[in-house]
């Protein structure tokens, strides 16, 4: 196996995107677009692929999949893009060409960011992914889509700048610094604190850390469902991979930073759950669920940062968690779209069952990939540190939150069984089903598990996965009973929660600026009028400039000037020849 697959993984989507530009090639390119992730999928399966290096491109292009973590990310990314692509073929109606263009470019950026072997290469592909994803968010071109896209872009740009600063501080003079040397470079840097803070905030925008999450609940509902699937399943998870690459995990103990990161993770997990439960749009609920789940992954990163001994376990846990989340969340987003198309009767029941399977995985129910992911996270948290008991308890509380979110989602998204019987199109349900199956394979294929010894069945696993689930369902039932008794609807929070305040503040200050400018203009005009009255000078200047303009008018006959100049150049030439 040569590195050709790695190169094709990036080149193929870009080539197809370029081919969309030519009218003649457009139908062909659009037909091939869903299959563009195939090279990435194939190269993720090969065990040892040599890296691809090309010094002439970028600041030294480095692509490769040297470690299992990279290959795992590549694998689930390729699978999700592939199935989202096939799903999109049936799903996307209007602006299909524009959709495929941004779809392909975002995919290239995503795959390239995973394969990147140096900081500069990563920066390029990450930016390509970020900016191209804008096109996916804005796709519907509605007011809501525009607002979501604007919010996304502003936050992404801010994050981008912090990341650039962090990258530059990491790289210093070694412009093509390979990723292998990055953690050490960060650990040894005199600006370690600043770098880590910038990295956390910069990638936090993508991952949706609390208060940096504002774009997620706006973008997911407006983007086409297959786009939401990859957005939530792979794009935001690139941030996790990036943290694994950049943060000095396992190199230097950073207890302060690690614990604060873990704390931020927990806050994010709970915040996402609480605000998400109060939503009325199923896709917004899923977005908040993603925020919440990313919080849990960040907790593991924090733990690994705090204690180098825990770092390998943390890495493995995060990688498995990301794979599981990509499959399950992707299934839920595609499933939500399938459910919307489904009428009633047995199709409705089957679709609900499919949604339930994916939802159980997110909730971490026994016998699902979610249970394994949660067990891996728990391993990381309970191993070394003193606060182990507390964090394990918090993890269980978070699992209750996840369950609540899933209950809420199912109640909003499941098709009504009593409606007229109508099945979804095969173009939609087949890819969805394949994705569900891949997610389950993650749980049942021992080679894919984070720890092959981890028990999928057994009383311990059943209990630790089961009780938060039962507690969550009980809580949901109780809450709805209480609400019914009180005769009230559940309280709601607008999607994007605190964004509403930010927007109000921006609006106010913008009005303030406009007012101030208007006042300044009025004052200036008044002053000018005053000055003109007081000083006769103005009139004199005007007269002078009028005269100058007359002179100018004469000079406007530029042929004369041209001939004049020619003389000048003739003189110059004469000098030169001399």
């Amino acid at each position: 196996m040569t590195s050709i697959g790695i190169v094709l993984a990036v080149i193929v989507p870009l080539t197809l995107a370029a081919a969309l530009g030519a009218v003649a090639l457009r139908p062909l390119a659009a037909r091939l677009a869903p299959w563009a992730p195939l090279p990435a999928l194939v190269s993720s399966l090969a065990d040892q692929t040599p890296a691809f290096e090309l010094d002439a491109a970028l600041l030294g292009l480095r692509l490769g999949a040297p470690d299992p973590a990279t290959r795992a990310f590549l694998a689930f990314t390729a699978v999700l893009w592939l199935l989202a692509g096939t799903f999109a073929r049936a799903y996307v109606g209007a602006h299909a060409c524009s959709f495929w263009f941004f779809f392909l470019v975002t995919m290239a950026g995503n795959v390239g960011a995973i394969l990147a072997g140096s900081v500069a290469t990563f920066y390029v592909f990450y930016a390509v992914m970020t900016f191209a994803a804008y096109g996916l968010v804005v796709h519907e071109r509605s007011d809501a889509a525009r607002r979501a896209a604007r919010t996304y872009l502003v936050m992404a740009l801010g994050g981008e700048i912090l990341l650039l600063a962090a990258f530059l501080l990491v790289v210093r003079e070694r412009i093509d610094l390979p990723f292998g040397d990055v953690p050490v470079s960060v650990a040894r840097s005199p600006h370690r604190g600043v770098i880590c803070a910038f990295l956390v905030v910069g990638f936090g925008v993508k991952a949706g850390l609390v208060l940096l999450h504002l774009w997620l609940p706006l973008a997911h509902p407006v983007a086409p469902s297959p786009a939401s699937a990859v957005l939530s399943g792979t794009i935001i998870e690139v941030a996790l991979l990036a943290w694994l690459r950049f943060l000095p995990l396992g190199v230097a103990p950073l207890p302060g930073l690690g614990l604060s990161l873990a704390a931020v993770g927990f806050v994010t997990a709970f915040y996402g759950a609480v605000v998400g439960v109060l939503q009325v749009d199923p896709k917004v609920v899923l977005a908040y669920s993603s925020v919440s789940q990313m919080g849990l992954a960040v907790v593991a990163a924090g733990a690994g940062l705090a204690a180098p001994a825990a770092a390998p376990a943390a890495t493995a846990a995060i990688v498995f968690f990301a794979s599981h989340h990509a499959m399950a969340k992707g299934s839920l987003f595609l499933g939500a779209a399938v459910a919307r198309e489904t009428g009633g009767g047995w199709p409705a029941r089957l679709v609900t069952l499919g949604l339930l399977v994916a939802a159980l995985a997110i909730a971490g129910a026994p016998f699902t990939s979610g249970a394994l992911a949660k067990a891996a996270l728990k391993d990381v948290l309970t191993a070394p540190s003193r606060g182990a008991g507390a964090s394990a308890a918090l993890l269980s509380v978070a699992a209750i939150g996840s369950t609540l979110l899933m209950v809420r989602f199912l109640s909003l998204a499941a098709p009504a069984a009593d409606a007229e019987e109508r099945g979804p199109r095969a173009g939609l349900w087949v890819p969805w089903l394949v994705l569900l199956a891949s997610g389950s394979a993650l749980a049942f294929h021992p080679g894919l598990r984070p720890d092959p010894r981890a028990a999928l069945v057994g009383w311990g696993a059943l209990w630790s996965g089961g009780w938060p689930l039962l507690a969550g369902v009980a809580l949901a039932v109780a809450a709805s009973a209480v609400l019914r008794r009180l005769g009230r609807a559940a309280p709601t929070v607008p999607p994007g929660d605190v964004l509403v305040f930010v927007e109000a503040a921006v609006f106010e200050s913008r009005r303030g600026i406009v007012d101030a400018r208007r006042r300044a203009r009025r004052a200036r005009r008044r002053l000018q009028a005053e000055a003109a009255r007081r000083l006769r000078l103005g009139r004199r200047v005007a007269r002078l400039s009028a005269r100058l303009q007359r002179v100018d008018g004469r000079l406007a006959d530029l042929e004369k000037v041209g001939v004049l100049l020619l003389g000048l150049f003739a003189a110059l030439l004469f000098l030169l020849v001399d």
Partner: protein
Amino acid sequence: MTLETTLPLWVLLTSLIPGVLLFFLPERRHGVRTTINISAACAKLALTAVMVRGVYAGRRYETRIPFLADVDILLRADPFALLFVTLSAALWLATTAYAVGYLEGSPHRSRFFGFFSLCVASTMGIALAGNLLTFFVFYEMLTITTYPLVVHRGTIEALRAGDVYLRYTIGGGAVFLAGVVLIYSLLGPLDFVERGALPLAAREHRVALVVAFVLLVGGLAVKAALFPLHRWLPEAMVAPAPVSALLHAVAVVKAGAFGITRVVYDVYGVRLAHELGVMRPLAILAAFTIVYGSVQALTQRDLKRRLAYSTVSQISYIVLGVAIFGTLSTIGGIVHLVHQGLMKVTLFFCAGNLAEELGIHEVSALRGVGRRMPLTMGAFTVGALGMIGVPPVAGWITKWYLGLGAFTAGEPWVVAVLGASALLNAAYFLPLVYDAWFAAPASVWRAPSGRAEVNLWLLVPTLTTAALSLAVGVFAGFDFSPLGWAKLIARREFAE
């Protein structure tokens, strides 16, 4: 008379001679004029390529012509000169082709192309100048030959803009001359030398050197449009689009930035300049101009005016890179000379296409135009993303090196300025890009007259420069890329 001693002169003459010929060409001989123009531009490009290969192999090209008693007119092709020569030669070809299409059917074309060629000849002289006097001669020649281009349309507005332009640039030239005289009277005639031409003994004249520096850079700052000497540039955008393109990308503003770089590196020497303590104020001024230009651009409703203020901001990237000590920032500054040229020429071409084809001048009129002119707006998008610094378009290389240079030199505030500038650039470019692609058109556009969305003479240069902007970012690691060349220059300037 070997190739080594005549080639710089020939590069100059390939645009000077056509310029002279074109004045005598009857107005209606369009075919001949276009042939002369394009073949001259191609010839220049070929000669430049020869010199680039030669200089890369370590050869020297130098034309020395006795001028005054002890001062020569010296044309010399060192790597830095060649960077500018190559940029000018390539973009001259692009802008000439563009101008052929743009001015189709309009009067005074002989005059226009004559001055256009002379303007490029002056730029070549500036690039190849081997000492301050030669530089000054061509610098002034540039001022004069550009004026007819600015006022080409002959409207009151254009004449007024020409007035402003002359007032600024002639003033700047005079100040620059004062600086040259001061240096010559102190130290005698000096040729540009890498790592600085001033002899060690010059350090005694500390105060005089600082004064001379202020005069030289102050004079050059007019053309480089540093705050507060930038006002002429937004006025001058009344010129026809190809002129604006040339003005903003190659000729005038670049001459200023190029001159500042020459003065810092090859007259004073970067170490001496920093010892004198003049670089920090220059860096702060440049940083301020970067932000100021962007803020001003944000408020402009006219597309070309917005682009003009964007130039004010972007040119200061070059000055900023020059003013921060270190190899990396120097590379960033020098490479932006080329990057900004390619991206800005693309943007002005696009503005010209929009104005020619659909009569669009205001930024608010771009809604839905992407559907009518997808290729033009594609090029515009590339240029705009490059200005923001979105990889892989050229601009990110600049940002990367400037930022690295700033951190290495212990000036982290520069990175904050770069970040703020990127955000501001996004704020004034991205809404246009959004409108063009995603907004519904306000009216029905006029159908294209030919098969392409706009005259091919206009479209091909636009797409070429856009593709180049992308290519120099994607293939930055290539030895002959602008980045590779800038590294070569910086290595020589900082060699011990």
